[in-house]
């Protein structure tokens, strides 16, 4: 049943977000601490379990793969609802701060990725 896949995805997502909120309140901050990461970890644990002892089944699997394929359209919708005017109206300080941070961070991607290989 396709709903089993969706439900499993839902369980992992909700548990992860719940754990993230708990961690947040533990640290006393008003933010979700790694909820999505925990949820992804849970889903990966489940799927590696399925490969061994349990079988999720091809059709149930589609409930998960559908959502991972619909990801890009969701991101496009997300882009279409950003506050772009707000970003540009923020003035030169905001533009420069954002631009510099992004540019420097890009430069460090290959540097940190290659740390160990040297």
């Amino acid at each position, binding site marked *: 049943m396709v709903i089993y896949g969706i439900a499993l995805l839902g369980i992992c997502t909700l548990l992860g977000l719940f754990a993230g909120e708990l961690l947040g309140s533990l640290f006393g901050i008003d933010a979700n601490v790694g909820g999505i990461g925990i949820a992804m970890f849970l889903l990966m644990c489940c799927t590696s379990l399925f490969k061994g002892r349990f079988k999720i089944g091809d059709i149930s699997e589609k409930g998960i793969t559908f959502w991972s394929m619909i*990801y890009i359209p969701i991101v496009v919708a997300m882009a279409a609802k950003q506050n772009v005017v707000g970003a540009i109206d923020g003035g030169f300080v905001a533009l420069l701060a954002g631009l510099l941070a992004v540019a420097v961070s890009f430069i460090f991607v290959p540097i940190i990725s290659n740390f160990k290989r040297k």
Partner: protein
Amino acid sequence: MEILNEVLISNNLTTAFVFVGLIVYLSYFFSNYFTGGRFHGSAIAIILGLIFSYMAGLFTEGQKGVADFAILSGVGILGGSMLRDFAIVATAYGANFTDLRSSGKAGVFSLLFGVILSFSFGALVAISFGYDDPRSITTIGAGTVTFVVGPITGSAIGAESEVIALSIAAGLVKSILVMTITPLVAGRIGLDNPKSAMVFGGLMGTNSGVAAGLAAVDPKLVPYGAMTATFYTAVGCLLVPSVLFFLVSALY
């Protein structure tokens, strides 16, 4: 016409599927016919989405891009954090445990380093523009971390509301730049494997920027980048109003 409007509005999520479908179709058409497929269709789709949202923002003076039009209010649901998070988690299906483990250290390092790096540049820009009280400098630096860390820090340390608004703008600029620039520079910075995706997620941190940037490069990399980026805002909320604020206060 009025009846059509009514149907579109009361079925807003369905309308959003059609709207996004059209954007994606157009984008892949452009990609194939004008760039020979070299510029990825999803990158064009994301940029088109941002352009539409800019035009909509000018027209409606709202904050939610095209979702401020009643007919397109469904785009707000489709692109909202609930479905985005759900889909990001789904991308982890098929991600590889060993890849994750082998680049774990680089990921954690990039996370701490990324927060401090973005904060420092935001704070330096604030200082060079004449801000001289530690609260404003810290809040603008915090906004450069992400647009969530900015207001959380600002209200925690008691910054003025103008400065908080500025910090949100800095975070928005960052997230939009990451969305648009990532596909252009991906090849040059070696963003083509799980490890560099994790480092990228840790350095950039903005959830929406990382999500969209990696989607336009290679959807297979999304779970790795999202995995580290999901901790970024939290690390920012922990470090900025405490350690980094004390540091800025000590210097000023």
